[in-house]
């Protein structure tokens, strides 16, 4: 029961482990790898569980079987032995009883006293003697207790028996008569009790052994299992985590395994840090080898261990069996010997103790015959009398025969020779003629036992010791078996135990001998034992250790094991040994082989699986590395491609420029019409090619990451104007209205890359023009991104209209620039990061612009909208057929926008139109930092400051655009939606000051109505008359805003006097200025004409001082200026310049080198300026008269620096020390003109 419990307990543990691992399994990465690992674990576990179970069952069974067998065996044997002993005792009593019919009581008592040793188990008899001998009894009680403890410990019945017999022997000195029946019944009870106790204790010990074995096996099994679990957790864990760790964090772990996992991860981390992946692979392989080696070693060790155990058990069994047999043999022999001893005492009592003798040959023979069952192993007993030589005659007479001598020297008693034939014994000191003998050996009567050498020794020893002595083995008569003769001496009186040999010899009256048949004795004994077949027993007389005499047993076949037990037959001189062997050679230890082979197979299997896994991991790693290499190569190839493209494009561009230049020159020569046409076609194609190459170059530059944006200040509005003016030809041809609008909040000057910005917008506008057919508009608007953020309060009107677009859908025309529907522009930027991202890293230095290009074109098909920004992909393969182009522009634009840290997006509906939007970050620029181009308008623009204008337009957006342009000129604007309302508006302000400012009325062509315009005109005329104003003064001029009008149409309108002028859209600042100037007739209009004057006219007759230390430079500058008619004076040092320029002087300008020895240009200028200011102060304060200084009230000579390095820092430094401008060395005509124009224009 308890064993079962343990078994199930271990099973529980196994299953618990299994569950744990399973749970762990499920926690690993969600891929096939996990599956693989789980399989592996499962296999491993299965292997372990199965081996464990097999092993466990095997060992358990064998042990149980063994122990059962042993228990039953030993029990049976013990029972038999007990029974035997009991029987012997019983027989003793029976024998006594049979003897009783003749002898008297005293004789019986005497005999009983002596024969007490024969009744070893009759301690109940002695119990009755308690009162009589308390001391002895006490000691005996102690003995019994000792016996009992010994029993429990050793379950050794023989010892018990020995002790009993010894002590009983001494106790039996005091006995009382007890009835035979009671004795026998009590002793029987006792025996059965003893038997029970013995059996119980024997049983008690066996299970204990079993449990010990069992627990040992289970402990080992569990230990191995644990090692397996740890290994299986670790190895795959380590191997795999190396690879998978980064990819997927393990799912939430169960707490039990969490720590383990964590530990593993840490370990792996360390390993990762320390060793490169290749090292890890090697390490894995090493680990695997170690593991396999360990497995092999384990299996070898297991085999050795199990085999050793089997051998040990075998030895143990053999020893047990051998010892048992030896003990039993010894017991049987001793019993027989005791009996012979008793017989000797009987003879002494009844033959010598009685006169006349109560025993004659007949009585002796009969008695011995009847008690032969008690000596089952003796072939016969005989009694020889001690006869001295002096008594021989008398003795011979008395018996009527002569003492005969043994025939031969050896002890063999020849049966068939008759006593009569034997010679009489030779004369000796004494003789030992046999007088009584058992029937079986009656032939030896009258033979002198002392005549045989062996018997003589025996007799002498027997009478000296008083104990039974044995001869060496010899062949017995009749049976031809080997036998020994046991001899007891018979004394005529009781001798004390410590009697000396002389006393004993003295008291000797005769000798009792008995011959033992050893082989049959052993045979009989072995028959009684069940396991006789398994072992071979040999008995040897080893008195002479060098030449042992075999007493029993067949030939020896060596079966390996041999156990030797010594036998004690009661004769101290003689030594006997029992040799036991197994009959069969030990069978092969299948259990050990199975177990170890199982472990080996499992190890190899697991090793194979892990090896496969490691190989796979290595392969995957290799593949991965290869792919990385390939990837790197592919990327390198891509970069190389881009570089190649860039280089080749550049290389093509250079000769193409030559081709184009030559073509241009060719066209300037005298060509006939056809030649000119060819040349023009070639030139146009070349230009197309160049633009295409430029695009490809851009794309390549972008892809190779070499495109960088400039950071220069530029005027956004002018830029947009110029873009629109460039594309206006095309759009006007198509009849498309184009307009640009920039929100008020956008600063005038921004810092960025104007070229790229222009490129993007040109591209978008170009696309729009390309895809818009003969109707509608293209509208470019620029806002701040910040304006979009708060959609609720959009201040800008244009934006508002974009918002209200959907609401106005119900009305017939749409509130757009041209009245055609457009897509919702808000959709185009809804995904922009700049708009949505709440990134508050708003750099105050940065402004972010949102540019929208809206058209009413064909739109983009929905399915093509995804790939519109992919290079060389157009919305439709038919697109390039219809519209041309490479499809690279949008891709470039996208990249450029990304370089500007912006987004590009669009919204498009087929048939309605598209709106492209992009954002970009720009720096805030200073107006002053802008180049002088812008400045040329400055005086003109100021002319229009404070004027008023009225716009009559039915489309509010268009009106807003116009308003935007006018406001750039500083003109305040009012808007009315129709001519009628304009009339009422005009009449309503007649009296106010607003009318005085109203300088122009702009009428869009859509609301143009000749009658109403005339009405308006007459209204104005009326007013002038009313106010009696000068005819020439200030009637508001009327302008017509038109998109596409032929020059004929325009001139017709102008000459008919309806309008003062016609403005062509798209509106541009320069066009507006020119137009207004013409119409308003300002005198300043001639300024522009003057600007066209050549450098020569500017410089003519000017007196110019050139300061340069370098002779060559000085000469060159002089030459250059002289060429334009200037009168040049040269000095080579700063001091000279100071002297020359001390007021009053006649120089008009000074060109000064910056780097000069002694006094450089900066210092010279500073001193000149200080001298001038001194004079000026004096003049101002009236200290000196103006006449002294050449009638000049304010002295300021323009000083221009001459420098080779035109960098901003130098320029600033120049301005700081009082210079007016700079010219770069060597002189270039244009630059020189620009520089000097500032100073000399006004003077003329």
């Amino acid at each position, binding site marked *: 029961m308890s064993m079962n419990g343990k078994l199930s307990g271990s099973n529980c543990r196994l299953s618990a482990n299994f569950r744990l691992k399973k749970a762990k399994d499920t926690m690993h990465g969600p891929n096939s790898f996990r599956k693989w690992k789980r399989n592996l674990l499962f296999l491993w576990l299965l292997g372990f569980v199965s081996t464990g179970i097999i092993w466990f069952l095997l060992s358990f069974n064998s042990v149980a079987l063994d122990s059962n067998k042993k228990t039953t065996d030993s029990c049976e044997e013990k029972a038999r032995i007990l029974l035997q002993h009991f029987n012997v005792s019983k027989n003793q009593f029976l024998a006594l009883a049979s003897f009783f019919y003749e002898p008297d009581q005293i004789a019986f008592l005497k005999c009983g006293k002596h024969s007490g040793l024969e009744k070893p188990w009759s301690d109940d008899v002695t119990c009755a003697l308690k009162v009589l001998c308390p001391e002895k009894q006490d000691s005996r009680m102690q003995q019994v207790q000792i016996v009992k403890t010994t029993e429990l410990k050793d379950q050794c019945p023989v010892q018990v028996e020995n002790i009993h017999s010894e002590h009983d022997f001494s106790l039996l000195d005091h006995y009382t008569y007890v009835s035979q029946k009671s004795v026998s019944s009590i002793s029987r009870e006792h025996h059965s009790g003893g038997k029970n106790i013995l059996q119980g204790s024997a049983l008690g010990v066996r299970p204990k052994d079993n449990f010990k074995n069992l627990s040992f096996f289970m402990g080992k099994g569990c230990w191995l299992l644990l090692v397996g679990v740890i290994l299986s957790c670790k190895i795959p864990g380590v191997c795999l985590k190396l690879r998978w760790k980064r990819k997927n964090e393990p799912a939430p772990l169960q707490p039990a395994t969490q720590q383990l996992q964590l530990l593993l991860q840490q370990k792996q981390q360390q390993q990762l840090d320390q060793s490169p992946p290749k090292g890890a692979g090697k390490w894995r392989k090493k680990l695997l080898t170690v593991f396999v080696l360990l497995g092999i070693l384990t299996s070898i060790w297991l085999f050795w261990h199990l085999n050793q155990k089997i051998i040990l058990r075998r030895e143990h069994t053999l020893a047990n069996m051998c010892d048992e047999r030896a003990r039993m043999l010894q017991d049987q022999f001793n019993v027989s010997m005791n009996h012979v001893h008793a017989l000797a005492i009987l003879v002494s009592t009844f033959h010598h103790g009685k006169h006349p003798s109560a025993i004659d040959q007949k009585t002796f023979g009969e008695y011995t015959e009847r008690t032969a069952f008690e000596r089952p192993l003796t072939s016969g007993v005989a009694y020889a009398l001690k006869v001295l030589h002096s008594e021989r005659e008398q003795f011979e007479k008395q018996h009527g025969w002569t003492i005969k001598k043994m025939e031969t020297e050896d002890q063999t008693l020849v049966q068939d020779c008759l006593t009569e034939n034997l010679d009489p014994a030779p004369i000796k000191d004494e003789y030992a003629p046999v007088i009584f003998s058992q029937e079986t050996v009656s032939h030896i009567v009258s033979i002198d036992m002392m005549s045989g050498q062996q018997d003589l020794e025996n007799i002498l020893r027997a009478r000296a010791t008083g104990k039974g002595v044995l001869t060496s083995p010899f062949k017995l008569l009749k049976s031809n078996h080997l036998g020994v003769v046991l001899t007891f001496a018979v004394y005529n009186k009781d001798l004390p135990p410590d009697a000396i040999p002389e006393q004993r010899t003295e008291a000797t009256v005769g000798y009792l001998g008995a011959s033992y048949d050893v082989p049959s004795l052993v045979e009989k004994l072995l028959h009684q034992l069940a396991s006789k077949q398994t072992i071979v027993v040999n008995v040897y007389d080893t008195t002479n250790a060098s030449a042992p005499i075999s007493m029993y047993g067949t030939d020896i076949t060596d079966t390996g094991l041999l156990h030797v037990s010594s036998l004690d037959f009661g004769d101290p001189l003689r030594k006997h040994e029992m040799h036991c062997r197994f009959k069969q050679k030990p069978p092969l230890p299948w259990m050990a082989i199975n177990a170890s082979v199982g472990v080996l197979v499992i190890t190899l299997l697991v090793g194979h699986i892990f090896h496969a896994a490691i190989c796979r991991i290595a392969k995957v790693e290799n593949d991965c590395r290869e792919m990385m290499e390939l990837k790197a190569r592919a990327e390198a190839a891509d970069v190389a491609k881009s570089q190649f493209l860039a280089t080749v494009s550049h290389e093509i561009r250079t000769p193409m420029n030559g081709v184009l230049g030559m073509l241009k020159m060719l066209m300037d020569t005298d060509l006939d019409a056809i030649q000119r046409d060819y040349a023009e076609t070639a030139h146009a194609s070349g230009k197309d090619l160049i633009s295409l190459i430029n695009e490809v170059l851009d794309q390549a530059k972008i892809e190779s990451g070499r495109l960088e944006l400039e950071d220069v200040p530029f005027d956004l509005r002018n830029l947009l104007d110029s873009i629109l003016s460039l594309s206006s030809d095309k759009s006007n041809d198509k009849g498309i209205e184009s307009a640009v609008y920039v929100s008020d909040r956008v600063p005038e000057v921004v810092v960025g890359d104007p070229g790229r910005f222009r490129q993007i917008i040109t591209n978008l506008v170009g696309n729009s023009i390309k895809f818009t057919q003969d109707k509608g508009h293209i509208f470019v608007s620029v806002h701040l991104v910040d304006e979009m953020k708060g959609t609720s309060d959009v201040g800008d009107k244009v934006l508002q209209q974009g918002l209200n677009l959907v609401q106005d859908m119900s009305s017939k025309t749409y509130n757009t620039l041209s009245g055609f529907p457009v897509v919702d522009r808000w959709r185009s930027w809804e995904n922009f990061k700049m708009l949505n991202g709440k990134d508050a890293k708003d750099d105050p230095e940065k402004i972010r612009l949102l540019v929208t290009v809206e058209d009413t074109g064909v739109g983009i098909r929905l399915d093509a909208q995804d790939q519109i920004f992919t290079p060389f992909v157009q919305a439709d393969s038919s697109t390039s057929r219809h519209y041309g182009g490479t499809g690279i522009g949008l891709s470039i634009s996208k990249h450029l926008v990304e370089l500007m840290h912006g987004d590009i997006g669009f919204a498009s509906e087929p048939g309605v139109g598209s709106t492209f939007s992009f954002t970009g970050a720009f720096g805030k620029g200073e107006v002053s930092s802008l180049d002088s181009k812008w400045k040329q308008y400055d005086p003109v623009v100021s002319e229009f400051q404070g004027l008023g204008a009225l716009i009559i337009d039915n489309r509010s957006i268009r009106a807003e655009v116009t308003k935007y342009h006018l406001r750039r000129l500083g003109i305040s604007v009012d808007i009315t939606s129709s001519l009628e309302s304009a009339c009422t508006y005009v009449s309503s302000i007649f009296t106010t000051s607003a009318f005085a400012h109203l300088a122009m009325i702009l009428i869009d062509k859509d609301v143009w109505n000749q009658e109403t315009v005339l009405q308006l005109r007459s209204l104005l005329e009326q007013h002038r008359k009313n106010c009696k104003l000068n005819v020439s003064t200030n009637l508001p001029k009327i302008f017509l805003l038109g998109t596409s009008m032929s020059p004929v149409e325009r001139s017709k309108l102008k000459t008919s006097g309806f309008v003062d002028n016609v403005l062509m859209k798209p509106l541009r600042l320069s066009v507006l200025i020119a137009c207004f100037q013409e119409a308003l007739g300002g005198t300043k209009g001639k300024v522009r004409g003057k600007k066209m004057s050549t450098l020569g006219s500017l410089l003519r007759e000017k007196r110019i001082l050139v300061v340069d*230390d*370098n*002779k*060559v*430079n000085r*000469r*060159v500058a002089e*030459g*250059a200026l*002289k*060429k334009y008619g200037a009168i040049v004076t040269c000095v080579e040092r700063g001091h000279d310049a100071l002297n020359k320029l001390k007021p009053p002087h006649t120089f008009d300008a000074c060109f000064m080198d910056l*780097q000069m*020895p002694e006094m450089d240009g900066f210092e010279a200028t500073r001193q000149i300026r200080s001298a001038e200011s001194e004079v000026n102060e004096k003049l101002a304060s009236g200290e000196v008269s103006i006449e002294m200084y050449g009638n000049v009230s304010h002295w300021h000579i323009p000083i221009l620096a001459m420098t*080779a390095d035109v960098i901003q820092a130098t320029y600033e430094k120049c301005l700081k020390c009082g210079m007016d401008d700079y010219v770069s*060395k*060597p*002189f*270039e005509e244009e630059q020189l003109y620009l520089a000097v124009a500032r100073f000399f224009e006004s003077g003329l």
Partner: protein
Amino acid sequence: MDLVQLQRQLVDYRTSLYHEGFLDEQFTQLQSLQDENNPDFVVEVVSLFFEDSERLLNELSKALEQQVIDFKRMDAQVHQLKGSSSSIGAHRVQKLCIVFRNYCEAQNVEGCLKCLQQVKHEYGIIKTKLESMFQLEQQILNAGGSIPV
């Protein structure tokens, strides 16, 4: 025939000077400044350049032979040389002068020596080339032809 050949030769020669980088467009500017009022302008300026350059080169050589080299002074001189060479469009000399100035700033004696040698070499070349060009022009003028532009 002779004159046409000479003229062609002059044009080729001039083109080669531009092409090989001895001269740049500044020389063209210089030539454009020459007109009837100032017929020998180019020759005059170039002679000035030769004069000035030889003086500067001598001074530089002397300065570099000194125990204690006055790099500041040398820098100024090289600057002068650079200025004049760029004025007449002696492109190679001008480029070398930029390198020379860097060495002067770094006070690298070996570099300066090396550069001086190179500048002298280049100066010699440009001088020879210009002189031969002027000779050609003179021949053309003597032969009664005009100098092609």
